[in-house]
């Protein structure tokens, strides 16, 4: 039967086309095959046309067979097309493959910078005093002999001058200007400029003519708190030192005061805190005492008030101060302070992210 032979040929053609589609390497090759399917001369088209002249009784069955062939062909082409897209996708993204790890493994000297360890420590200390209601005061590093010594009740030949061996400058009268040896002249300036009440903290860089060692550099940093108001007493000083200590070091670290001597305060005290290394049980850092000395404190001496023109019968005040560098050193576990002036990037890069 003619139509039977036509179907067999069309079946072979569909199979051949399907296998060529499966082997197609590109979308363009597949498009050519699709053209061949749509071509009027294709065996399938010819059979469709032949249906018009066929016995109507045979048509449904023949039409169903043709439809099946058509479906097989479309599915084969569709599958081939999907395979080609997948290959193309693979090619595109495969070429862009990358590894996040490669970007994490960069040189430690690249990337964000850092604030200096001293800056971070200073800001943290300032913030504690700000939270206690204090302002932050500043002053110049070069000072007059009067602001640095005389006004602080340290006259010439006073033994306290010898203990603060100074860098005097070849400027003005002999020994009239120097690099400040402590942050106290900031307080002198503050008391001259502002009427009480004064609640301020004065951080800054100071200089002493000492031979550098693991814990000392000739330039270093101090912070000093000053309160001048009516009715300020030693008990206020004590409480302030205690609350500063627990705010900065945590509630397990205690502060204590013991008598000391400073020309600019009276009564004067040295203040100590629980050793942060051994928590008070005694170790080498604290020479077995469980305490480490942090700084000096006391009630502002009437002679200092006289020097700055504040009436000590009306006002009283206290001051206390300590070194910033030592706190920074303790906190960061820096073994030797003498590396800091070198500004070595291997050190500076380690300051990143310290808070």
């Amino acid at each position, binding site marked *: 039967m003619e139509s039977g032979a036509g179907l067999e040929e069309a079946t072979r053609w569909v199979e051949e086309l399907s296998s060529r589609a499966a082997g197609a390497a590109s979308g363009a090759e597949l498009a050519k095959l699709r053209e061949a399917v749509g071509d009027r001369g294709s065996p399938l088209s010819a059979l469709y046309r032949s249906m018009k002249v066929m016995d109507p009784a045979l048509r449904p069955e023949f039409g169903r067979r043709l439809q099946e062939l058509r479906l097989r062909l479309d599915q084969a082409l569709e599958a081939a097309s999907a395979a080609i897209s997948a290959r193309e996708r693979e090619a595109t993204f495969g070429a862009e493959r990358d590894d996040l790890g490669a970007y994490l493994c960069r040189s430690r*000297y690249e990337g964000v910078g850092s*604030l200096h360890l001293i800056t971070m420590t200073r800001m943290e200390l300032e913030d504690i005093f700000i939270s206690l209601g204090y302002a*932050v005061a500043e002053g110049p590093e*070069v000072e*007059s002999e009067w602001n640095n010594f005389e006004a602080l009740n340290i006259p010439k030949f006073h*033994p306290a001058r010898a203990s603060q061996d100074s860098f005097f*400058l070849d400027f003005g009268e002999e020994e009239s200007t120097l690099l400040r040896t402590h942050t106290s002249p900031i307080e002198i300036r503050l008391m001259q400029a502002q009427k009480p009440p004064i609640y301020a903290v004065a951080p800054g860089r100071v200089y002493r003519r000492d031979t550098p060692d693991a814990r000392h550099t000739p330039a270093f940093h101090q912070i000093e708190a000053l309160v001048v108001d009516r009715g300020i*007493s030693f008990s206020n000083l004590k409480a302030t030192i205690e609350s500063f200590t627990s705010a900065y070091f945590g509630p397990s670290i205690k502060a204590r005061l013991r008598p000391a001597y400073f020309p600019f305060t009276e009564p004067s005290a040295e203040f100590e805190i629980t050793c942060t290394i051994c928590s008070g049980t005694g170790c080498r850092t604290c020479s077995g005492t469980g305490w480490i000395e942090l700084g000096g404190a006391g009630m502002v001496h009437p002679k200092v008030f006289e020097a700055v023109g504040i009436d000590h019968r009306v006002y009283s005040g206290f001051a206390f101060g300590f070194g910033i560098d030592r706190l920074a050193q303790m906190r960061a576990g820096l073994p030797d302070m003498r590396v800091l002036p070198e500004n*070595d990037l291997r050190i500076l890069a380690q*300051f990143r992210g310290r808070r």
Partner: protein
Amino acid sequence: MRITLQWLQEFADLSSLGFGGDPVGSAGDRRVAALVDALNQLGMVVEGVEIAPASLDGVVVAEVVEISEIEGADRIRLTGVDDGEGRLRPVVCGAWNFQVGDKVPLARPGSTLPNGREIGSRKLRGMVSEGMLCSPVEVGVSPESGGLLILDSSAPVGEELASYLGIATDVVLDLAIEANRPDANCVMGVARDLAAWLRAPFSEPESPPVKLVEPSRPFAVDAAACDRLVTAEFGGVEGATFPLRLVRRLQLCGMRSISPVVDASNYVMLEIGQPTHAYDLDRLAAGAIAVRSAAPGERITTLDGTERTLGPEDICIAGGDGAPIGIAGVMGGSDTEITAGTTRMLLEVAHFDRGRIARTSKRLGLRSEASARFERGVDPSIAEQAIARFAQLTGLEPQVACVHASTYPLPEPILVKSEQVVAAIGHDDPQALLSMLEPSGPLEAIGLSCEPTDGGFTVTPPLYRPDITGPHDVIEEVARHFGYARVTSRMLRGPGAGLTPSQRFERQLRELLGGMGFHETWPATLVAPAEQADAGTTSGWVTLSDPISALESTLRVTVLSGLLRALRHNISRRMPAVNLFEIGPVFSGAGGSGGLPREVRRLAVLVAADGGNGLRAIGSVLADLRDFSRCPVLELAEAGSIDGSWWPSLHPTRSQALLDSSGSVVGMAGELLGSQVTGTASPGAELGSLPRYGYLEIDLGYLDSGGEPGRIAPPSVYTSSDLDFSFVVPAGVGVCELHSAVREALGLVCQDLFVFDRYTPESSGESYVGLRARLESPEGVIDDAITRELIESVAAAAARLGSRLRRG
């Protein structure tokens, strides 16, 4: 200052601390800890505690009965000693300073000496030696060896040496005494304070009193230099003695034993605080001394053999002939010092002007135990006590003791109001505070006489507390003896000012620069002159009078001079990617005020440029800083056209000065010279594989002058458009100038304007600059008509600068 526990106990009853029973075994002894705590709470800080064990168990007094040679040995001999056990004990000995009949210390086998040496029986050259005969060093009474310790012939054979000498295990305390505690520079003063704190009895050991007489011929004393002079003459000095147990005590306190007379003088000073000076009376002209100011240029050779020149500020001791023989209170002269041959001596016990002793000792760089005490303050009334103690210790009898001067003033009474005490200390139990001042209270115990008066006390300090001159000094003593630890804590808060806008700005600026990849540096403010020159400053800096090193001898005029050190350090460590910033001061000798040099705070930024252009790298940083700080528009000027003495000088064609609106220089930005990077002399130094570096230094105050930002403007809802302009710009017209002229011409619709293209042909004075404007209006779309108008006004603005807008 080193003192010992037993010495303290001679003055103060320490039984309330538990002392008096078992001897102290270790530095961790509970009683020692309590003593240390008490001293610390009094402000006499204990810096060290050492146990000094007597360690003389098994060391006894022995008599040398026979001495015989050992065959074949010429350094050692065999002795037979009697140690009270009824037989001759053979002991081999290497010393030669003894003879038969001498009493010497014998360490029996099984004993351990203070230096840790264990003594046993041993065989030497075939002889059995049962123990060892000891030197002063070996039994711990002196640092000097010189053969055996020869004991007094009355020493009882067989007695334990420790009990014979009166030596027991002691504790040495190293105290830090503050400058306002002259009384505490001696054992007696420490003990007095401690006893008052413990509310325990205090007593001074008694010495046979010395009779003082009016001198038949008073020595000349300048009252302004010396307000007390007492002298005592002693004969038979060669027979002076000094107890061995006290030699050990001096040694524990860090004093070398010299001779009985010197040892006794030192002992008196450590014990009661009074320095004394001994002269050989036979070498003293006319047997007299005088106290006067030195003449200008007067010379003297001091005990240490150094010739020193004196001036009228110095107090000098002169001999009877007027020639200088000593620097008062500081150091004696070599001509009149006592020697081994001295038989007659004059002991000088004086009270000199504190300030003058301090100045002399500072000027001469001569600080002695005596000068340290004189400059802090010695009790002028204890001269006779010092002589009596000296006589007692040496066994010498003063032949005559005279007061030549006694003009010292008595302390002034101080009126202290009770309310003042309470207000200053603030303890919440005022009565407890005031009880310190009551009769037989602690202040009385430390010598302050406290008379109750209306509403307070009249307090008269003792002569040994010259530091107490006003009510605050008394209040400090009240607080000290009340106990700082007992004072109530009263919390206090300030009014809460917070940071100033400038302080906030500075913090944010630091955070910004850190975020931009820069590390903040430790400012090198002290630099070498060569570093100043490298940064472009050749003069005008301030120099330190007495620098530690030439490398840190001047105050930097530019931040760069200090930063170059950091740059070169990191390059030398093979880390050339140096990105640093710093906020810190610079100083100049000119232009300061208030008698001080000029001091200005600046920001500096150093950036390693990826490409070959440091100016481009730093320009981008400056643009960020400008936007961040909102500082007013900067004018740029050729670096060569300004007075640069106060600023770094950089690459001549890749640097520009930054000017504020008034034309003052506020900064400098550009590329570092090769020579600045490498530190070599040639300005065009080869950088090799090093990058170029951009650098910026700018006044912090200028950066901070931008004020608060305005309100945030909402963006336009209408479509924006870009408009590109291309200009031909003549030499001498800066891009910034063109930019601001164009921006002004475009007016409010210009939302953004930036350089998108720039080209400078070689051998041409002109350059080509492309600017792209983003145009946007809140009122509507920018149409062609508006655009044409804008182009015309831009062209006109450019023309006014001598620049030409290219069209087409």
